[in-house]
């Protein structure tokens, strides 16, 4: 049934858009892009690491592709890949140094890295300075530039579905299970005693996460046709973290749920301004304090609540036996 539902959603995503207004398509594109960002962030949050700087890697991907297209006239299709690869390289360099240490060093270093990236983009004219890079071209397919929302929607849909499928499969590989084992320092020590190189696994997870952020960042920039140091800021990094935490860390679908709810509804309700991050932050605190498992854990909590209500005697009997 689950598989059927998924097929239905994908079919709807592929077939319905021609009926949609440009604005609806715009919202759909933004949501899809952010779903991939959040899902990529989830790869490392799932192993208990927190990043406040994913926007830095997204910006790296976006700038790479934008510079290649505007300065050298290289096709954005190659740019998408180049953006991902460059982001992955930088992630590898930082990860190698910091992922051997406790999580907090990593979080703070990534945060600092993102701010430094933005400062460097602002400082040098090669990168467009504070004004950024304008007139970034859309990619072309069979000789036509994909200038309409509808055409670009399909680019985003394909790239995001491929990324999401890969990230989903990654969880169920040996590598994915190992990452889960690294979540706490106790289980990490256990894994290392079994001969697993924890630091290398974590670094590779970070590289994968940043690769998809870089690719999607490049797609994002070609969608906006513009990039500046103020597009991908600290607030994007925190928004992504809010999506993941609100949706829930317990399941692959949690971050997706959080992103769709908060971007889809949030963009509509609070078109602009500081109210958006205010509402996000309040929702975040409420969820963390009241439902630590995130929204995705709600059905499970209700189900468990119902069952415990139904058979209290049985539960008590079990408890008595265990004592």
């Amino acid at each position, binding site marked *: 049934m689950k598989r059927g539902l998924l097929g239905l959603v994908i079919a709807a995503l592929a077939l319905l858009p021609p009926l949609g207004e440009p604005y609806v398509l715009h919202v759909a594109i933004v949501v899809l892009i952010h779903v991939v960002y959040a899902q990529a962030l989830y790869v490392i949050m799932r192993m208990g690491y927190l990043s406040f700087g994913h926007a830095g890697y997204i910006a790296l991907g976006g700038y790479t592709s934008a510079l290649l297209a505007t300065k050298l006239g290289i096709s954005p299709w190659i740019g998408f890949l180049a953006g991902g690869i460059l982001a992955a390289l930088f992630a590898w360099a930082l990860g190698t140094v910091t992922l051997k240490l406790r999580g*907090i060093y990593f979080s*703070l270093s990534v945060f*600092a890295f993102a701010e430094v990236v933005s400062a460097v983009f602002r400082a040098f004219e090669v990168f467009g300075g504070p004004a950024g890079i304008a007139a970034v071209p859309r990619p072309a397919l069979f000789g036509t530039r994909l200038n309409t929302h509808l055409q670009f929607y399909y680019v985003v849909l394909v790239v995001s579905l491929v990324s999401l499928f890969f990230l989903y499969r990654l969880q169920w590989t040996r590598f994915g299970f190992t990452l889960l084992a690294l979540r706490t320092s106790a289980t990490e020590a256990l894994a290392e005693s079994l001969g697993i190189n924890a630091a290398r696994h974590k670094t590779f997870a970070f590289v994968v996460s940043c690769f998809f952020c870089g690719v999607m960042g490049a797609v994002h920039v070609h969608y906006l046709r513009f990039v500046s140091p103020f597009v991908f800021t600290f607030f994007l990094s*925190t928004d992504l973290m809010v999506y993941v935490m609100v949706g829930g860390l317990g399941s692959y679908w949690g971050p997706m749920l959080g992103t769709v709810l908060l971007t889809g509804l949030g963009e509509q309700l609070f078109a602009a301004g500081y109210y958006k991050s205010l509402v996000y932050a309040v929702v975040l605190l409420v969820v963390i*304090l009241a439902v630590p498992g995130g929204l995705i854990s709600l059905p499970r909590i209700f189900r468990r609540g119902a069952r415990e209500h139904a058979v209290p005697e049985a539960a008590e009997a079990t408890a008595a036996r265990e004592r």
Partner: protein
Amino acid sequence: MLIALGLTLIYGILHIVNFAHGEIYMLGAMGVFYAHVILKLPIAVTLVAILVLSLLLGLVVERAFFRSLRGRWLQLVVASVGLSLIIQSLAWVAFGIQEKHVPSFFTGIVSFGGVRLPVERLVAAAVGAVLVALLYLLVYRTKVGLAMRAIEEDEETARMLGINADGVAALACAIGFALAALAGAFVAPIYSLNPGMGLEVILMSFLIIIVGGLGSISGTVLAGLLIGVLQSVGGVLVGAEAAYGLVFVVMIVVLIFRPAGLLGKA
């Protein structure tokens, strides 16, 4: 550097990296603007009011958020980010986007053998030094400080020995907040103020506490001086924004060779 010290204190005792710290600094500076410039309160009254309010805010935040999330560091850090976003977005709404300026508390210029320095910067530096000394005395020479260090070392044992861990943690949080707010108040006349100023400062503070070693007070002081010098020299040589890059490279080098920071414990 005062901010970094407050951060290091809170990290050391509570094991929290408090992202809301920069916002408290911003509120301190804004407090000076509204109380001293708009309401024309004397500067001493303003400073005492800021001190008291920030201590109270620290207690409230510890009680409302940090205590119930103790031991779950992921949730804790995320909660502090949420808090920071709330304060900052409210500040944009309340204070507006216009930059604010505070006239100097002290005017005049002193010259030491040809080097001319404005008095207000000297006062800010002196106050900073005094606060650092006071903090050092508190942590290393008083009973409360001993309790703080005991909790840092091993919270469970400290609790068994009858130390009121919750109370000490609340106190550390309050002191950390007060340090940030006072730092904000003293730099108010030096910089122009806007609600985003906290974010710039928190970046520098994070770099400082990583280089100095998380939770180490003397390491923080050393790294603060080092990075301050590096940033001003680098700023002259390659420009202020690129100097960030330079500081970052230093951080990476420190992490490679001394992963726990200059004076941190591994």
